[in-house]
């Protein structure tokens, strides 16, 4: 009986943490999916998440409104998206180089801005965090309730975003056009579509989502800004897109698996076991390297991913 109870407690704790931790990963991956479906590999989402996290924290902390914090994170993403879109689409720079350099730049900028803000502020940092909003009735379901329905509003919103992303990509003409642009931009162009506009749209969506994911990390998981708040989760989102084979619903499953790995490490720290947590902490990144190596998912990749388009 005791063993049973411990096991249930462990499983509930682990799976609930899985859902919680998968949220920002999925949010960033869903956005990235739109960029990649349009033919742009936006590696810069790691940096965008960090800037989103910073601005979200600052906005929430100075206004006292968590939702304004979220909006701030998204606005930071939109701004970064304008710049990245220009580099990827208009300047046709190498998407990998621009993305990687942008991440380094974002880290520098965020650290500097954070010090600047803190320097002018007095008093200790107070945590800014959403509280858990249990869904009436559903959260009372044994076992499943605490796992699925006892979370911050951001978790529920992310689930809605995933369903919405699937609908937009698969069932609307915007989605059809965006996918055409990522597969065969020349065909899209001759069909009268504005390839540049759709690629900008993809990049902007991915950056706004990354900004929101950064805000999510601060406002629902940490409560404060730290330079290490993102630490590679943007890259994991890139891997999730590949494992999800460029589909929102499969990406959600992939995000849950990555979330589970992360949560396992946290839960094991509580329950103490023989496995060193650092090893588990490193695991998702190892899987990410594998995903990014191009060994997986080639067959489903949009055909013109990373190929700039110009009319001759």
């Amino acid at each position, binding site marked *: 009986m005791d063993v049973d109870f411990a096991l249930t407690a462990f499983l509930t704790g682990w799976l609930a943490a899985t859902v919680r931790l998968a949220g920002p990963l999925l949010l960033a991956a869903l956005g990235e999916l739109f960029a990649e479906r349009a033919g742009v590999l936006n590696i810069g989402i790691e940096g965008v998440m960090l800037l989103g996290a910073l601005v979200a924290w600052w906005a929430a902390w100075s206004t006292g409104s968590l939702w304004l914090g979220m909006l701030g994170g998204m606005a930071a993403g939109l701004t970064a998206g304008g710049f990245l879109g220009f580099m990827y689409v208009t300047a046709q720079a190498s998407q990998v180089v621009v993305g990687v350099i942008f991440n380094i730049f974002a880290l520098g900028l965020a650290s500097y801005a954070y010090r600047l803000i803190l320097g002018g502020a007095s008093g200790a940092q107070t945590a800014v965090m959403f509280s858990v909003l249990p869904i009436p009735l559903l959260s009372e379901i044994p076992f499943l309730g605490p796992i699925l329905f006892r979370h911050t509003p951001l978790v529920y919103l992310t689930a809605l975003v995933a369903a919405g992303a699937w609908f937009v990509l698969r069932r609307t*003409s*915007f989605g*059809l*056009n965006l996918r055409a642009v990522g597969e*065969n931009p020349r*065909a*899209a162009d*001759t*069909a009268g579509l504005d390839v540049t506009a759709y690629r900008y749209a993809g990049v902007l969506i991915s950056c706004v989502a990354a900004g929101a994911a950064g805000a999510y990390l601060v406002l629902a998981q940490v409560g404060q800004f730290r330079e290490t708040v993102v630490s590679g989760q943007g890259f994991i989102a890139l891997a999730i897109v590949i494992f999800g084979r460029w589909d929102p619903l499969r990406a959600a499953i992939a995000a849950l698996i990555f979330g589970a790995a992360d949560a396992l490490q946290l839960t094991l720290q509580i329950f103490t076991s023989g496995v060193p947590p650092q090893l588990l902490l490193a695991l998702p990144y190892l899987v990410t390297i594998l995903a990014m190596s191009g060994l997986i998912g080639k067959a489903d990749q949009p055909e013109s991913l990373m190929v700039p388009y110009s009319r001759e």
Partner: protein
Amino acid sequence: MTPFLSARGIVKRFPGVLANDHVDFDVNAGEIHALLGENGAGKSTLMQIVYGLYGRDAGEILIEGRPLDLRSTRDAIAAGIGMIHQEFMLVRRFSATENVVLGLKAGGALKPLDLEGPAREIAELSRRYGLQVDPAARIEHLPVGTQQRVEILKLLYRKAKLLILDEPTAVLTPGEAEALLKVLRTLADQGHAVVIVTHKLHEIMAAADRVTIMRDGRVVGSVKTAESSEAELARLMVGREVALTARRSTRPAGPSVLRVEGLTVMSDQGRSALEGLSLDLREGEILGLAGVDGNGQSELAQALTGLRTASGGRVLLGERDLTRASPAERRSAGVAYVPADRRHVGSVGALSIAENAILGDQRAYARFGLLDRKRGRSFAAGLMERFDIRPRKPDYPAGKLSGGNLQKVQLGRAIASDPRALIVEQPTRGLDVGAIEAVWAELLRLREAGKAILLISAELEEILNLSDRIAVIYEGRIMGELPAAQADLRRIGLMMAGSHGEEDGHADL
């Protein structure tokens, strides 16, 4: 009768070239009109102008007698003009229906997309014009001929009255081409105007009602096919009498030189490109490899020359196994290669003719690691003399040569190495008649000199004219092999479409 479309006095200048010089062109509803001319004659330019892709420097376009304000393809489409490019503008992973509706304004961008209505309409159009297409099929699963039908449906769905097809049969098997021409006839009978841009004379005679012939940017004639002949069209197109039939001596082939045994190769996409292909290339013969483009021909050439690794099978030159040999080893063993893409694979555009001529053999032209440019130049000068390469300047950049001259550089370089076996891939693609004559003559001369030649070509006429033996490739396999004397078009056509060419009575392809 007022023509559906008339172009009057069209002038188009490109830097240094007058591509269209006061061109007049008419096409009537209900007719198939061929636009004939060599490469660079200006026929594509004219069609791009009519379709709104290029602006024009002078002249006007009339639709049913009324001037058309044509600024973009959108205006052209609105006026009922549709164009099918040589390279299909389809999204491979989309269904036929999705491709047809792509880009059409259908309510709000975020409203649920209705694909069932269009699918029904497409099925209806298919029935009406005899264009068999499953609206739900993904493009990547459709044969090329069917993909082309999707392109035609795209135009019909957009209510095009005039359909322009640029070299529509270039990628088709003879059977598919026949079926296409039948569809075009149905379209014309139902009141559409059809323009085919082509250089294939027999096709024009078979399918078109009228031909307009262009040369050097000008219209040199417009005739009814019923009142003309292939010979007259050829003369108008080239500007002189031509006799494009190669004369071959009959001479028995010698012993085997290059043997391919069960070769298996993967394509860039990781699909199987060659599946256990075997060939035997003999001394003093041309083996013609016929087939529709993209059935493994390029992969075969690359596997033979060492540019692609074979995953199975063997390549033997005489007794020597070259399967794992590097390109350099194969060259020095006596396998020479004339690639299809002269501009990007066969030459380096920024280097001079002389530098390109010694490319690959540059070590022979170097002393203590320094290039002896003088020797290179004199070698190139000899080559240019012998093959009549113009301009006769060894320091001229290769990228600025015309296709025909560049091809002669490639061919000359390959021959100069005195190979035992020569792999020639699409040797006359995009060349004008004069250059084709020169290349053919050179290949036949090499055959007389006892070389073993593998001629890979998608042009059946070329294969039939030059080969001693003909093999047909389909999806990476040899469908059959026959001596040129017994070759007939129908059998080869069947094999190109994937049958073994044995069944008779399949007249309706």
